């Protein structure tokens, strides 16, 4: 697979699975034995676990939108810098719905095999999200 084809797979994940909420498409983009290094506690392994995670995220944030800001690829690896935003309606990472809007950034690295994502490492600031949801006080917020 070329680096352009690999980037297209990652772009499809954002556009179809996340933004169009087509979790059913995950099997076209991710291997059965997919390793998710951003797995949530209790997440099943592989493709099934990835589908569970994203179905949960979308249920918690029905207007979830991911934007790819930059993407680079080399060999069988793709890195994407992204922004995630939405409204926290349902339980997310153990936090009941707050109704708050959030927006945060992250960088993900994916390793592809046979034209599908086989492994991913995500990096984003969970502290920032928890502060935006009001679960953890922000510096200078007056709640400390």
């Amino acid at each position, binding site marked *: 697979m070329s*680096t352009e084809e690999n980037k297209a797979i990652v772009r499809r994940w954002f556009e179809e699975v996340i933004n169009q909420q087509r979790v059913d498409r995950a099997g076209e983009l991710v291997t059965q034995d997919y390793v998710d290094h951003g797995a949530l506690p209790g997440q099943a392994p592989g493709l099934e676990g990835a589908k569970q995670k994203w179905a949960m995220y979308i249920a918690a944030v029905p207007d979830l939108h991911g934007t790819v800001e*930059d993407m*680079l*690829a*080399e*060999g069988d*690896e*793709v*890195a994407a*810098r992204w922004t995630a935003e939405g409204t926290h309606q349902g339980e997310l*990472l*153990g*936090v009941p719905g707050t109704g708050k809007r959030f927006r945060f*950034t*992250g*960088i993900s*690295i994916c390793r592809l095999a046979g034209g599908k994502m086989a492994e991913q*490492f995500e*990096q*984003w*600031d*969970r*502290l*920032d999200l*928890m502060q935006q949801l009001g*679960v*953890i006080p922000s*510096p200078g917020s007056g709640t400390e």
Partner: protein
Amino acid sequence: MSTEENKQLVLRWREQAYEKKNLNVIDELHAPGYVGHIVGAPGPIRGPEALKQLFAAYFAAFDIHVSSAFLIAEGDMVVVRDTYRLKHRGEFQGIPPTGKELSVTGTDIYRIVDGKFVEQWFEADMLGLMQQLGVLSTPGQA
């Protein structure tokens, strides 16, 4: 600059900053118009002097060792994913030194023009950092 030269620049930066603690290399390796989008900072870090101050604050608070996993380059950008081993030996965000040893992952994207860093995005698990310092419990378990 080739992608190989860009990767070497990133590796040299890491060696000088984290192993040699040579923050003066920032002037050599960062463009005057450098902008850093750095996790935990209240706004963009503009210019080499501001970056030196940020690093000086972190080095005052922590002994830092970094080991890099992924190193990916295309065009004018390089991505690197690191594990940082920290020892909390100085005040950090009002927290007196705990002596604790922590491990935190971080991922950088650098944009490089003519052998210098012009822009950087750095993400890291600040929640994990604060939890390991003992400052925060895990949300939802309070």
